[in-house]
């Protein structure tokens, strides 16, 4: 245990909903970073790229997110998935995002000890309340060094 690792949110814990504004300029900036010249990501009607919702956290007020609670020095981002339930969000859309801890589990570490996993899903709803997208992140805390059995 370290003194700086916050207490983990349990499975089922939800964050506080927060607003996410999908902006043309942010999409353009993201498209440049992904080296895409796809016209779908330009102009006033720009749609979002597949991994764009990673930027949604910049809209999260302090305290609105769930706590994975892993030691940052042993924290890995294992997997990431985005699901879109219809046409992609586009510039001008206002979404409501909310995080939820959906799973926690452990596996034996490759060099002994125990790896911990946490799965956090962020739901994105439009102004009508329809679920338009989900982001599913799997975080891993590797086994502590010297914990080989």
């Amino acid at each position: 245990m370290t003194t700086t690792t916050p207490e983990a949110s349990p499975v089922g814990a939800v964050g506080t909903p927060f607003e996410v504004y999908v902006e043309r300029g942010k999409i353009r900036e993201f498209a440049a970073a992904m080296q895409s010249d796809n016209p779908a990501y330009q102009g006033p009607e720009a749609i979002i790229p597949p991994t764009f919702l990673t930027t949604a956290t910049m809209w999260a007020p302090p305290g609105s997110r769930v706590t994975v609670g892993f030691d940052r020095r042993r924290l890995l981002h294992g997997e990431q998935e985005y699901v879109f339930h219809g046409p992609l969000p586009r510039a001008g859309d206002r979404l409501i995002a909310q995080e939820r801890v959906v799973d926690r589990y452990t596996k034996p570490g490759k060099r002994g000890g125990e790896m911990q996993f946490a799965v956090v899903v962020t739901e994105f709803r439009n102004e009508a309340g329809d679920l338009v997208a989900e982001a599913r992140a799997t975080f891993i805390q590797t086994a502590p060094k010297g914990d080989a059995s």
Partner: protein
Amino acid sequence: MTEQTIDLAPGTTAPPRDFGPLTRQMFVRYSGASGDLNPMHYDDTMARAAGNPSVFSQGMHQSALLATFATDWLGAEHVRRFQVRFREQVWPDDVLTCTGVVETVTDQADGSRLVTVSLTCSRQTGAVAISGSADFLIPGGAPA
């Protein structure tokens, strides 16, 4: 948008696409665009202090490059799912190669097709940095 007229049977592959050599500027640009300001990706002093030979690319940066490859292949507006698994670190001067193959094609009631592809982003060493998969909903009506 012009609709895809390419063959989309299982086993169909996309022309591979290279990105790189990767530069620190690319990592910084992704840091700013994404909001992930972890210094491991732009501060060599801190990256070395943490035991790395240098800064390294964000896994989500490589994922975004893989997304560029996939959306240029099957249509940005058609993507319905995009999944990645982070496998190996990527370093400055690496050249990444993105490849994709159609796994399944499922006809939908409205004449559209749900196309599931597997995606890979490999380093110049041949090691896989990112493996992933994606679903694209290709509208019907285009000539076969």
